[in-house]
Each structure stands twice: as structure tokens, then as C-alpha cells.
């Protein structure tokens, strides 16, 4: 079976909907089955990457901490839409390393190279 290139496009803020956690669960299972997986963060999805959040204040589980385990799951391709950060007056003060900030054309190109995209 040829290895497919799978992407997960994260478009939701971390705590307003269950999407971010559901996407993380898919990413980790794909990683543990040794699938070729890339993560994309766009729109409100970029909020998932911002450092020093306090999920306990809204009684949410600190699942963003699990992002630090990506390297153990061989999740090494992480792409962030720079325009989405700018629109929200955010900088890349992230709680992860090893990500690529891409402009919209580059972000689109990367998505188009995939065989499957899941959007959450």
C-alpha cells in the first residue's frame, strides 16, 4: 500500500468547540499508526498554538500540553497561516517549536500536495 499524505486542518479555537481536541486525537492515532501526517493551523485554529493559556479557568482539560509530544508521534510537519495570526494581532509566541509560518499561497500549496485533508 502506498503511503498517503494526510493533513489535519485546524480552524477552531481550542476551547469553544470540541474540534481542537477531536483533531488532536485523530493526529495522535495517525501518528501512532505511522501515517505521514501534517498539521495545519488557520483562522481561529491559530489560537491553539498560543503560549501561556489557562484552560483551568474555564474548566477545560489542558490538552494543548500534548502538542509537546508530537515529535514522539513523528508529527514533524506543522504549518501555520501567517495571515491568520496578523488578522488577530497575534505573534508566533507559541508553545511548540518546529513549525513553519507560511503566507497564504504557500499554505495553499502545501494543502494541495496532500492526498487527504481532514478539517476540524
Amino acid at each position: 500500500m502506498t503511503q498517503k499524505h494526510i493533513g489535519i486542518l485546524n480552524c477552531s479555537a481550542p476551547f469553544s468547540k470540541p474540534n481542537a481536541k477531536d483533531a488532536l486525537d485523530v493526529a495522535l492515532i495517525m501518528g501512532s499508526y505511522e501515517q505521514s501526517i501534517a498539521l495545519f493551523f488557520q483562522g481561529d485554529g491559530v489560537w491553539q498554538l498560543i503560549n501561556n493559556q489557562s484552560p483551568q479557568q474555564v474548566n477545560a482539560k489542558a490538552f494543548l500540553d500534548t502538542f509537546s509530544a508530537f515529535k514522539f508521534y513523528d508529527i514533524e510537519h506543522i504549518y501555520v497561516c501567517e495571515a491568520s495570526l496578523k488578522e488577530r494581532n497575534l505573534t508566533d509566541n507559541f508553545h511548540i517549536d518546529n513549525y513553519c509560518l507560511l503566507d497564504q499561497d504557500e499554505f495553499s500549496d502545501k494543502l494541495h500536495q496532500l492526498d487527504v485533508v481532514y478539517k476540524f
Partner: protein
Amino acid sequence: MANTLALIVTTPAYSNLSVTALNIAQSAIENGVELIGVFFYQQGVLNAAKYLSIPSDEYQIADEWQNLHEQHNIPLHLCITAAEKNALSDDKDIIETSNINDCFTVSGLGELVELTASAERVIQL
């Protein structure tokens, strides 16, 4: 792998996107595309609720999932973790009689990996 399809349903039974998923499934079969499975994730698991009751003048989605499974042998995989978060269970310790429709197979996210790797095309709704 050639000409195969996997469908991922993430919306509840009363969402028209779930109906669209069924329409795609039926069109695929009519047009010779091999539907290798449907995976229900997030609120999509609510399609498997045994006591689903949609007004009689609306599209009877539960009947259609059952037809798809029984007439065409399409596996309907339910993410059990998502199901339990939505009050669906077949665990005897939690519920006396399963409240999951019999035509659904209790699975996990590993099945999503299998379907994603095996199907030529994947459609998520």
C-alpha cells in the same frame, strides 16, 4: 484501492450534511464506486442512536443507514469514545441494553486510520 471511497460523518442525524453523506453513499454505489466504509465521529455518532426519532414528514435517515448496511453490506463504524461522550453505549456496566442501533459496528479511531489509508478517496462531512 482503485475506485474506492470512505465517508466520514461528523454531523448529527438531523443535520442535512448527514443526509448529504447518505446521498453521496448511494450515488457512489449506483455509479460503481466501492464504498469501503462509513466512519462516524464527533456528533456524527448520534446517527447511531437507537431511539432516534425524526418527524415522519422528514427524511428518515436511520432507515436509510440501515438500508445501506443491509442491502449493500456497507460497514458503519462508530467511534466508541465519541459515542460514549454522546451518551451512546453498549457497555453492560453502564447500560442494561445497548442504545446503539444494531446496524452500526462499534470501532475506534484505528478504523479511521485503516479507512483513510485504504480508500482512494475520502470525503468528510
